[in-house]
């Protein structure tokens, strides 16, 4: 690490120019070597999943030869899954749940953030702290009482139960980062809007939301990825396959002890992981902005 930091630090401690240059070159080499090793390790599992998903069952079960390469690539696993109504059902469930949860989360958190960041009322400071603390509550702390509550509402084994509960995962953080984005809008801007004749709602829709659009996008991405990847709640609340979203569906339904379904499992996992990865690929900067805005779960 010392060598690497030296690359930006110009050291004047009596060293010859040549050694300084070689020191810097070394630092750069170390950096690239570390990054290459890390990238290989980080990308190996998804790569291996892809390789497996392209193999036929017989090639997977063949123990001779390199498992990391595919000799006779086939889309068979993907085709079978797409043709499988159960898998398509998982997908549809995930899409419905995610769309609803994102919409609910954004409405609740944008309204609340605007009110907490700008309007202030009795107890608003405490509420802001409460929002943050709620964010720190992990889903595994409350899933048992929530199981009872969802059960008493008759929403077990239903996507509506999940749509009701998921906002507890998304809203606190979305509100938190929207408070941050709204608070960074100069106060003069709402004063100008006030003088221009805007009411509170107009101020929110015509000024705050457009100006804080990067924040809105970041929060939307967050809500999307969280509700797409949620695992504890669907595992606990849904046991009937036709109501499962993708995550638990792939994990619990594609694994069958007797037949050799690894290719299909990997294909299913990859297809299920695709939407967040695509969103990430296109909106990486917003994704990262949202991630670093409030220090997310890690």
């Amino acid at each position, binding site marked *: 690490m010392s060598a690497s930091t030296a690359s930006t630090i110009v050291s004047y401690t009596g060293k010859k120019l040549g050694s300084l240059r070689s020191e810097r070159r070394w630092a750069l080499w170390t950096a690239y070597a570390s990054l290459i090793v890390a990238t290989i390790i980080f990308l190996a599992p998804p790569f291996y999943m892809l390789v497996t998903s392209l193999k036929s069952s017989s090639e997977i079960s063949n123990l001779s030869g390199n498992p990391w390469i595919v000799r006779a690539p086939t889309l068979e696993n993907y085709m079978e899954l797409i043709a499988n109504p159960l898998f398509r059902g998982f997908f549809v469930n995930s899409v419905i749940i995610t769309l609803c949860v994102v919409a609910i989360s954004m409405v609740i958190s944008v309204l609340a953030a605007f009110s907490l960041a700008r309007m202030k009322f009795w107890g608003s400071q405490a509420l802001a702290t409460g929002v943050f603390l709620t964010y720190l509550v992990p889903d595994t*702390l409350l899933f048992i*009482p929530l199981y009872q509550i969802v059960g008493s509402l008759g929403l077990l084994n239903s996507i509506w139960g999940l749509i009701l509960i998921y906002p507890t995962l998304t809203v606190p953080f979305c509100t938190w980062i929207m408070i941050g984005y709204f608070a960074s809008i100069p106060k003069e801007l709402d004063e100008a809007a006030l003088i221009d004749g805007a009411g509170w709602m107009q101020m929110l829709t015509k000024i705050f939301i457009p100006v804080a659009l990067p924040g809105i996008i970041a929060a939307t991405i967050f809500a999307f990825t969280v509700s797409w990847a949620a695992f504890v709640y669907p595992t606990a609340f849904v046991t009937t396959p036709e109501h499962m979203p993708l*995550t638990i569906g792939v994990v619990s339904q594609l694994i069958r002890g007797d037949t050799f379904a690894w290719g299909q499992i990997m294909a299913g996992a*990859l297809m299920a992981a695709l939407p967040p990865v695509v969103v990430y690929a296109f909106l990486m900067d917003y994704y990262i902005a949202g991630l670093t805005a409030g220090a997310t*779960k890690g």
Partner: protein
Amino acid sequence: MAADGTLVAGAPAAAGSGRANTMQRFARRRSTIAFLMALPLIALIGGLVVYPAGYAMWLSTLNRRMTANIGLGNFEILLDSDTFWMVIMQSCIFAVGAVIAKALIGFWLAHMLHHIPAKGQRKWRGMLLIPWVIPPALSTLGWWWMFDPSYSSINWLLNIFAVPAVPWLGEPWWARFSVILVNVWYGSPFFMIMYLAALKSVPDQLYEAAAIDGATGWQGLRYVTLPMMQNIISITVLFSLIVTFANYDIVRVLTNGGPRDLTQVFASYAFQVGILSGNLPRGAAVSLFMFPVLAVFAYFILRGINRRNKEQM
């Protein structure tokens, strides 16, 4: 023009009081609107976080059939069982081990990334963040397959270097290691991205000033980088401790608690006891054991965030 600006301190009381009411009404109206806007949030937090938390405490005092209150009975039974002590130990090993590894790897990678030319950073960052983007339940499936006893592709690689095959999920300590490994793989990119953001916020002039003051690379790191990042490092570590401590996905998919409940953590054990074995009160009690630990972490995070906000003001 009587504009000499002679002062009259204190408002004329008579004129003021009548008006103060309308002004107050105006202010009250504004905070009413604000309160209404925050109401859905309050309902959500109250109904689906605060109420369940209270409900969990009540639930944990009931017997299995939820017909009688047995006070702290569930907690006593848990503390008497060897399995539960194993769960406590495993949760701590898992959380502490994984967070330390994630923090170190994340810090190292952030540094490496920070020191390559800015042009290439985006590309590398994009690739290195991928483990974080894939829903962990799904990527863990891939790991599970890589750890498969007879088809392990990792063991195949190890065999090339003449290393004997490793019983990844079969043997307790290896299983523990595997669970941590997957969590580290999944969580390191997050640390990296947080640290990278923090590194970028340290002004270059500080390093230049330190270099002119005669600091070596190490000293620059020790006396400039670390102090400047101290707050974000501690917030990130505490955050990660909470989430890792309460992790469920990876254990569920990779080992499902096995072999012989040796890799159970609080969350997976609570699930096992509460949902799968149908003893909801005791499951709730298991979850509640996490509460004091999480509360302490949360307190320190809040303190760190407040301090950071104050510094930025």
